[in-house]
């Protein structure tokens, strides 16, 4: 399936403390035409959010200083970011982790390792409003 036209309109903020993780996601999204901004901690993400309003945010959960949970709380507290989907992309794949994240207010939950083959489909499945 070719989602190029859809994905080309996306502006995605990727937040992760692992540069390799950022690179994988950035490569896949940019290959499909999306504009990608990245931050390697929560504070930088918040700084970036003052400049751009992304189509959605992909964030790791375990990060130093401001982690994914705190970042989500800040986003949900700023009215100008109202309605921006926040997707957790995390290596926390134990039973109950997804439930906890969705309960905290994440729009969707994806586990690492992600598969570049199916990544766009996975995103669209979880965020049908973007299709």
């Amino acid at each position, binding site marked *: 399936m070719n989602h190029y036209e859809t994905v080309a309109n996306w502006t995605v903020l990727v937040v992760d403390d692992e540069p390799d993780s950022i690179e994988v996601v950035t490569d896949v999204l940019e290959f499909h035409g999306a504009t990608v901004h990245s931050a390697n901690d929560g504070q930088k993400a918040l700084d970036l959010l003052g400049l751009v309003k992304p189509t959605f945010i992909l964030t790791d959960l*375990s990060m130093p200083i401001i982690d994914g949970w705190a970042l989500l709380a800040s986003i949900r507290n700023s009215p100008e970011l109202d309605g921006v989907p926040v997707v957790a992309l995390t290596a926390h794949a*134990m*039973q109950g982790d997804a439930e906890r994240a969705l309960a905290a207010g994440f729009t969707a939950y994806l586990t690492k390792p992600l598969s*570049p083959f199916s990544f766009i489909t996975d995103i669209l499945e979880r965020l049908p409003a973007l299709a």
Partner: protein
Amino acid sequence: MSTNGKPARRDTTRNDAQPRFRARLRSTLVAAFVLLSVLPIALAMFVAVERTSAQAEQQVVNQLDSIAETKEQAIRADLADSHSILEGVIADPVSYSDVVTLLTMSAPDESLRGTVATRFEAMLAVQEAFSEFFLYDPEGTIFVSTEPVQVDKVVRQKPYYAPSLQGVQIQTPFYELQSETLTMVASRPVFDETGQLVGVLAGRLSPGAFAEIMTQRVGLGETGETYLVSLENNYLVTPSRFEGYPLLRAYHSAGIDNALAGLDGTASYVNYRDQPVIGAYRWLPDVQLGLVAEMEQAEAFRAVRQSTQTSILVAALAAFIAANIGLFVALRITRPIAELTTVTRQLSEGNLAARTQVRLRNEIGELGSTFNTMAAQLQTTLRKLEESVKEARTATAMAREANRVKSEFLATMSHELRTPLNAIIGFAEILLAGMAGELSEQHKHKITRIHLNSKRLLDLINDLLDLAKIEAGRVEVLRDPFSPIQLAATLEAEMESLAEQKGLAFNISVDSSLPPTLIGDTARLEQATSNLLSNAFKFTHRGRVELRLSANGDRSWSVVVSDTGIGIPPHALEYIFDEFRQVDTGSQRAYGGSGLGLAITRNLARVMGGEVHVSSTLGEGSTFTITLPLIVPEDVAVEMAYESL
């Protein structure tokens, strides 16, 4: 030991209840002792009194009877004397000729009459039995009498007259109007030389003669008396011992009436004075009189009564002493029991240090020392038990902590392993997808190997985590209704592509005897079964793989996965379910897989309350059977019950 060394708790309400118990035991013992001592005494006393009173009565009766006998003898003797006297009067030669002459004279000579009278008077003076001698002719006219006024009187009407002509006799007492007394007359006929009856010599017996005999009171005590009673109007012939009972009055009593009826005997009765008496009575035929000897019962039984009183006093004293001994013994018995009770209660209330001080050299003492031993053992046992519980608690806490650490470790490990894998798989796929430009065939091949191996590593990590989660008890088994047919369909869909890929037949069957709805965890079932199916497809190169769901009676059901694969050698059947064990390392290389699938399946079957078994023939195929408890929803069970009707 929290209870150790704690002072004995004394509960006041309990203590109130305790003396009541002791009093009850004590009073029971005292009552028993008193009864046991008083009863025999009372019984013995009763028997003794009965015997004594019977003896006393018999003694009195015997005494009265012998007195009556003596008096009868005395009266006989007296009467014999009277006759001798009359004989003596007649036998006097002087008077006899004078008497005959006098009686045979046609006209009595006054001087001869005077001579005879003088002679009679002289004889009267020397004896006491008679108060008068008199002589009368056959017609009853008195010729001579020691009482001059009687001369010439006719005795024809007197009761003694007629019998006196016949022979010697004593007229029974009769009431004489002139003298107003009871009179007795003894008489003998007088004959002349030719034997012709010429008259009768008679003597009036002195009224005091029998009275003297009868008023002799030797052996009669204070109330005893003997008296004679006449047939004539039931008059007394001899005076009563007591005042106010004149001779000439009709008297009645059992004794009097029996004697006058001619009976001899003894009896207890109410006498003429209305007193209860013991009496002996007899009929004296010689004088036609009744003789009665009586004694008042009050006197007769006085001794008995006194001894009865003494006995009662002794019995009361004995009872009193017995009661005191009983009380003493009861206290001796109950006091240690009460103490034991108190200590037992203290023990039961948790004061395990409570010990009894009872040191008696008897069974109670033994009970006390046994109790102390028991309490000591209890204390030791409880202490050990508490120590064990404490140890067990510590062990549980440690196990829980270990489990928590393990879970935390698993979560961390999962996270840390996935993070680098994310990069490896991610970049491998980016390269393979051509997102980073075209690759040469050689590069593509190598990167494909990296990709496959990293996927395998991911599978291994996922399986390891699954297994660890099951073993850590973190797996929760659901109990929801599910459809076995739906389960089979899901598994079919899951394995379809694999079957197609390997060109194998995939047969699925669900027994009609299996209830349409079961209770269980469908996700876990699916996971366990799909592991078996994956293995079956992996190790089968031709033929078929079969999945069958079947009921085994109404207690269990089975998921059976069989194949026509390479089979498992017998030696491997033992460890086929162990972690990381395939048949050999070579097969692991040949077939891939983590070697954890069967271990996961077995562990899942166990957490669902079931078990997995395998049977296999090398080169022909294998059959894996998961057996699970059959649980049906209640409505399904009811439906089945209806169908079986």
